């Protein structure tokens, strides 16, 4: 008989609870970045500097947004598959989610290079500083998410399966991934669609 060091008075596992609190704090992080953008949005720009709405490519960004939304679906399917004991399905959906995340990032990369070529950049105006820092941090979060998905995938491959214990990790990575998605939902609307 052994006494466990870890108990659970709330009925929610420690790491899940911890993840929700962490995500709650991330609202303050992204909120500050979005606020920045909104503050600088309407201000006059120096000559030669394009306005955001002058160069946004809405169809392209809409497609990127859709890709990210669908990656949330595949994430949830990965978790569901693990719940059902379908190891192959889990691996497939994890990889798909990572792939969609990378697709999204590639789109961001492409978009940013286009903007840069048209005269936008980190140092040309505060609104552009805000834009790139905001979307840059969001992209970095997506990238970290992709890394975590790939770690889960490789654990599954290495061990032949993801055990019950790892199931929680899939859920945690999922929560993180969906959070990054909802931040994008806000960014897409507030930054791209509302002048």
């Amino acid at each position, binding site marked *: 008989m052994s006494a466990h060091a870890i108990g659970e008075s709330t009925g*929610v596992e420690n790491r899940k609870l911890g993840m929700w609190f962490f995500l709650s704090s991330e609202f303050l992080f992204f909120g500050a970045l979005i606020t920045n953008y909104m503050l600088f949005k309407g201000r006059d720009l120096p000559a030669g500097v394009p306005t955001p709405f002058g160069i946004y490519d809405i*169809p392209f960004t809409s497609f990127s947004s859709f890709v990210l939304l669908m990656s949330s679906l595949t994430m*949830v399917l990965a978790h569901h598959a693990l719940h059902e004991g379908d190891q192959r399905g889990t691996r497939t959906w994890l990889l798909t989610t990572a792939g969609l995340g990378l697709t999204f990032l590639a789109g961001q990369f492409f978009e940013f290079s286009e903007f840069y070529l048209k005269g936008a950049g980190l140092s040309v105006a505060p609104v552009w500083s805000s834009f790139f820092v905001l979307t840059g941090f969001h992209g970095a979060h997506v990238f970290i998410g992709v890394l975590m998905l790939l770690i889960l995938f490789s654990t599954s491959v290495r061990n032949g399966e993801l055990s019950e214990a790892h199931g929680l990790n899939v859920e945690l990575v999922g929560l993180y991934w*969906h*959070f990054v998605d909802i931040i994008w939902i806000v960014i897409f609307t507030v930054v791209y*669609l*509302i002048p």
Partner: protein
Amino acid sequence: MAETQSPTIKLYIRVALLLGVLTAIEVGLFYLVEFTGMTQAMATPLLLGLAASKFLIVVGYFMHLKYEKPLLSRTFAIGAVLAGGLYAVVIADTIVSYLNNA
């Protein structure tokens, strides 16, 4: 892992389709403002409402919050509400100052 009742694959796919549709409507609104007589003032509240709906749908279904203990919803809400409130004040004050001094 969630012990409570989980949504089925069918439900997830329906949710995803709904999200796609809402996004399409948002983009549609953007173009309506560009090319028709719809004013931004009309479109903005709708856009914000659509974004909020997508937000809540992902949180509720994909993040499973609808089926979890209320503690988690409250946890999540604190951050969102605090962020919304604090930054609204900053934006308001900065914009008013800017307009006063411009």
